Each structure stands twice: as structure tokens, then as C-alpha cells.
């Protein structure tokens, strides 16, 4: 069955550095991948979507890449700030309803001042 994995449960970095989070998928070729942010005690919030025919997508300090050969998406936060500390989830669509998503378990990012 299709799987999506975020290899790191947690990532600790220093303020100002670039955070890079990894998402790998298997047994499927998704039409797009999405990234969400989740703060403690709250629901996930959509950040970015990248389609299979796009190599890279940017939004302010965020950048997402999609490598269909490696079956991998990378999520970058440049010039990271303590306010970026949160859990980040990747998700991929799969067959059936166009909106059905499989989510990774998330990577908890901590940005230290």
C-alpha cells in the first residue's frame, strides 16, 4: 500500500539557519504533495502544495521541492525564527476522492534563539 514517511521525528536548529525537512513516499506516484504546520493543541494549517510537474515552489521564507525520481519532497525554511517552531506534516493525495490525503507522522522543528 502507499506510504509516506518523514524520516526525522525532531529537528533542532539555531535561529537564522535554514531548516530542511524530508518527506519520502513509496508505492504510489502522487499528483501533488502538500505541507502543513501544526502547533500544539491545534489543527494542521495548510502551507504549500507542489505538483508532480513542478520542481520547486516558494512562498516567502518557505521552499518546497518535489523529486519524482527520488520519490522525495524537501521543505526548507530559510532564516528560521523561534516562531517557526512547530510540527510540520507532509501529505500526498491518492486514488479515490481527489482530496483524500495520506499524512506523514510529522517532524517537530525547534528553533533556538
Amino acid at each position, binding site marked *: 500500500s502507499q506510504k509516506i514517511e518523514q524520516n526525522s521525528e525532531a529537528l533542532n536548529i539555531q535561529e537564522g539557519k535554514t531548516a530542511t525537512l524530508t518527506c519520502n513516499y513509496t508505492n504510489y506516484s502522487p*499528483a*501533488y504533495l*502538500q505541507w502543513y504546520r501544526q502547533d500544539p*493543541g*491545534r*489543527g*494542521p*494549517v*495548510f502551507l504549500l*502544495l507542489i*505538483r508532480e510537474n513542478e520542481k520547486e515552489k516558494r512562498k516567502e521564507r518557505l521552499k518546497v521541492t518535489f523529486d519524482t525520481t527520488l520519490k522525495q519532497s524537501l521543505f526548507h525554511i530559510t532564516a528560521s525564527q523561534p516562531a517557526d517552531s512547530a510540527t510540520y*506534516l507532509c501529505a500526498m*493525495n491518492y486514488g*479515490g*476522492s*481527489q*482530496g*483524500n*490525503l*495520506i*499524512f*506523514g*507522522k*510529522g517532524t517537530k522543528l525547534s528553533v533556538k534563539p
Partner: protein
Amino acid sequence: DAGITQSPRHKVTETGTPVTLRCHQTENHRYMYWYRQDPGHGLRLIHYSYGVKDTDKGEVSDGYSVSRSKTEDFLLTLESATSSQTSVYFCATEGQLAGGASEQYFGPGTRLTVT
């Protein structure tokens, strides 16, 4: 926020009792979803709805049922709660993006404890 509320926000119930969680949206979105989130498992889809009275099962649907009698409301029922159903439950709706893709908007969650 996309105008999604969930009730109750917290609930403690006993094993064997029925429980109903409610999700209400004000965005007139067609698709609605119920997920559960557990440590070590992430978000898992329980059921979803693609219109009034139209629902389908997700990955972890056993022990759960849903109903959607109005566009704005999506109910999740635990027919006979078990301790394994202790979890945080999230409702989500689907908004359309350009090019046919969609994003999901999540409610604030319901923390359910089954004792």
C-alpha cells in the same frame, strides 16, 4: 480559519457508551473528513463525505459511523466506545485550489478519553 468548529472540544466517557462528535462548517465546502491523530501514527482518515448523505470509509473506519444530513454538519459516532478510541479527532473540509488540486482546512480538534 475556514470557519470550522468542533464540539465538544473535550470529552471523557466510559467504555461501551456511544459518543457523537460534531463538526460544523460555514464555508459551504462539499467534502468533509474525520481524522484521528495518535502519537506514532500521525493523522489517519476515519470517514469522509463528498456530499449530503454521501459518505465513504477511510483507513481506520471500524467502530465508527458518520452522517451528513446538511452540507454544514458532519457527525462522527463511536457506536460503543473502547479505550483504543482514545485520541484527538480532527474534522477537515476541502477547499479548491487553482488547477484542480485542493487543500484541507482543519478544525481545532476534540480530545476524547475513553476510560
